[in-house]
């Protein structure tokens, strides 16, 4: 079971959270302008990497806030936790703006 640092509540067990899949997939501004292929890409296709993966989590049984996590899918190591509005951090293990509290 993962230990996830909610930016608002601190480190908590995975059972308190739900995973919302890959992060940084913006909903297209004008879906009607997209080809079927482009819409299918948005709807169904994901990167599924072995290694660091940016994904969305929500603290379902806590503050109910959404946030982003970079998790290594091969080792389950959590490399960064950052707020929804923040771009994916490059390289560093903790993102600027992440308010993970040390408890």
């Amino acid at each position, binding site marked *: *079971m*993962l*230990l996830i640092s909610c930016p608002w509540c601190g480190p908590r*067990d*995975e059972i308190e959270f739900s995973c*919302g899949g890959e992060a940084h997939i*913006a*909903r297209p501004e*004008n*879906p*009607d302008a*997209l080809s*079927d292929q482009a*819409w*299918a890409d948005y*709807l169904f296709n994901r990167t599924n990497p072995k290694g660091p993966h940016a994904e*969305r989590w*929500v603290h*379902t049984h806590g503050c*109910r*806030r*959404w946030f982003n996590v970079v998790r290594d899918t091969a*080792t*389950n*190591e*959590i490399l960064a936790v950052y707020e*929804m*509005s923040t771009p994916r951090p490059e390289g560093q293990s903790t993102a600027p703006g992440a308010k993970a509290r040390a408890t």
Partner: protein
Amino acid sequence: MRSVGGGRIDRTRTLSFTFDGTGYQGFDGDTLASALVANGVRLVGRSFKLHRPRGLFAAGAEEPSAIVQLETGAHTLPNLRATQVELYDGLSATSVNAWPSLTVDLWSINSLLAPLLPAGFYYKTFMWPKSLWHAYESVIRRAAGLGRAPEQPDPDIYDHRYVHCDVLVVGGGPAGLAAALKAGRTGARVIIVDEQNELGGQLLGNRQHIDDAPGTDWAAAAAAELAALDEVQVLTRTTAFGHYEHNHVALLERCTDHLGPGAGGLGTEESGAGGVRQRVWKVRAKQVVLASGAHERSIVFRNNDRPGVMLASAAAAYVNRYAARPGHRAVVFTNNDSAYAAAADLAAGGVTVAAIVDARPEPGPAAVELAAAQGIELLVGRAVVDVKGSRRLEAVNVVPLDESGAPAGGTARTIGCDLLAVSGGWNPCVHLHCHSGGKVTFDAEQACFVPGESKLAIRAAGGAAAKFDLAACLDSGFAAGAAAARNAGITRRGHARKTPVAQPETPAPPRQLFYVPSPKRGGDTKAFVDLQHDVTAADIALAVREGYESVEHVKRYTTLGMATDQGKTSNVAGLAILSEVLERPIPEVGTTTFRPPYTAVTYGALAGRHVGEFADPVRKAAMHHWHEAAGAVFEDVGQWKRPWYYPRDGESMKQAVDRECLAARNAVGLVDASTLGKIDIQGRDTATLLNRIYTNAWDSLAIGRSRYGLMCTEDGMIFDDGVTTRLGEHHYLMTTTSGGAARVMAWLEEWLQTEWPELDVRLTSVTEQWASAGLCGPNARRLMDEVSEDLLLDAEALPFMAMAEGRVAGLPARVFRISFSGEVSFEVNVAARYGTALWTALMTAGEKYGITPYGTEAMHILRAEKGYIIAGQETDGSVTPIDLGFGRMVSKKKDFIGKRSLSRADTARENRKQLVGLLTEDETEVLPEGAQIVAEPRPMPPMEMIGHVTSSYYSANLGRSIALALIRSGQSRIGEAVFAPLPGKRVMARIVEPVFFDPEGQRLHG
């Protein structure tokens, strides 16, 4: 065969027990295994596949053969290792795999057939012809099986506990004690766990000394010091059974198992005992020290599974710890120095040691000295190649080995003995290290796998790190404890203490000998690698011959290491034999993966308190007690208990439901609608949110008006539906399905937080804040007029889909003109605390109008008569609004979630399944929901299925059955006949429009 003195048993406390129905006696401090040894019981089980007689092989968790069923009835537990069952008075155990009895096992015929039952035998034989597999299976399951699961409800109590710590030490032997002491003295929060009943580990079973005193003295002092440290928690009788991500470690504490059945649970009046039987601890450790020790290996040779063949350390442990002699005359067979101490222990315990057979041409000098001091004959460069005796060992055959490790030829020397103590070296117990992805590397010198890289903060010490001599074991324990505390962020250093001193040993290296090939033709079919699953050296060679080279494939084909012991004594020998057959070095062959649990965990412990009424929360509406008093039968809707129907004196369900349906359309019906999901939505951008979430437009909704909406997921499929009412300028109340409330709330939050944070909208779940009573029927308005004080209720002032606030039965209320029945309806919402007051007031005032409370069954029939859908019944995640005939509600002018998907080729095609009504030819025939529909029936499948029934009821108002169905191109098939092929019959029905009652909707607006 108990020695007169010594051992960690209390001879003043005699305990009686039975094994396979025979009574025996043991002492407090015994395990079931040691008590059987002391009673001279050699035959303790039959093997899984071949039903060969088996005896005790080990003394701990690695035992593959002595698998027992403990107790009977509700307290029975299958597949326990006799070596880990603490003896208590009255214990009753049976061996698991013999029929009709252990000594007369009819299935032992399999043993004679062994050459015909190689690896893959079942795959090759019983899979053909396929149709007979079920017949074979029941016989095979009986012949090859372990214990039986209890059939009665578990009367005991189990518990879960969550805890964080700085350092978790797994194992309470010398290394674990040293690590816990070192870390504990710094003030770190330490948990040390050990599966045995007391701390000490290997020191309990050998005669090693620390600081010139018995090792057990040092262990006792260490245990006392740990017990006195405030931040240290000692858990004995506790197994760390799994190591998971981020240093999450699961422990199983056996609180009362050693006291016998009935000691846990509710207890008995006589015993006065009771409480938690087993507890699962979920530990989050900053640092883990793995001091889980090592398991001794056997050596594979012909008939190495006979009762009397035992691991050398286990034989020594029975003598040292339990003063129980596992034999009269022993031969020790080894490839390393450690068995010499075991030989000395056996001799000291009164066992005659006939010889030590050492595979090495030159054993270590210390070992030779030890043998000489005991006057034991030493046979070097030799190996045991076969044994004599079936149910009891009688003699061993010893031959010289050549340089390759194969028998060099010549005559075998036969040595009479009833105990063969074998040591093939030691395997660090790396299971927990591997559970969460830790790697192992092969240490060629010590011929074993040692813990390698791990992503987690886990470090091995002692035997688990291949530190096999006591001095190194203690050193590595102290070092690991210090490093773990430091890395956990503890800066304080503990008081310096004198470091305990053990006699340093310089053991000579072992000889890499895993397997002594039999010179006999076919002899390897009886050379056992995995004793519990009867996997032989010949099976591994066969698997390779048949093309399986990957270790994972060989494992699955032969089932090596797949028994309940997970190959604790067999995996490494199996790999070594595979490497020889493949002619590849062991590291290249690789290893299989250890997975949790280390030893089996009961379902009771895993479930903890989450059983029975605590398995899932139960939600009840405010008026629940009224429904109960009225004799309602309830149904589960999500976690809610909803009244299903209200039977009156002796009514059947159908009679009650018919009466309720008729009353709702002919007088006035009352339904508890409190469970409908309710979300209070406020903020300037609420209409924008509704526009994006619902398929229809929301800009024009006036204050005090309601509108029905459908929500889709982004793939265009219906997700939920409900009515939303505008309460104020920026204030709305959304209703959802009863089961979908939490899902919809989470859905809206997700979009608001992740995609549209700029929208000014706030959501509050108010489902439980409101109680809701729905009145419907021709008398509903008259009744409402009577109970409301300040509300205008005529069709002009409060038309269909309007809302007014006022007082009903003296209670502040919101009244909604919404309908799920097609009748004039008023849904009265009051604060939940007034729910019962409202309900009883309506029932009292409504009596003269024939008010009839109705349940969910009548509610469903009334809505089906009108063709109203239920999200989740007419929809299943593959149904679009257009499929259900809601094309009018799909806005062309705006974007909404799912809109783009509705123009994809698959969603836009004409021949999708569409909602229609079905009327059976026989009006009394009620189709089963889910029934498949065909256009062209045939006597036998396959038939082309064109749809299925989604809802089906008997309608008392129509005097006939009705059904809703999703049928391919259904809307263009109106009037056509279709068929439902059912078991034993075929039902004809006609496709009609999905509205059966008052299609013009005159009653609704009246």
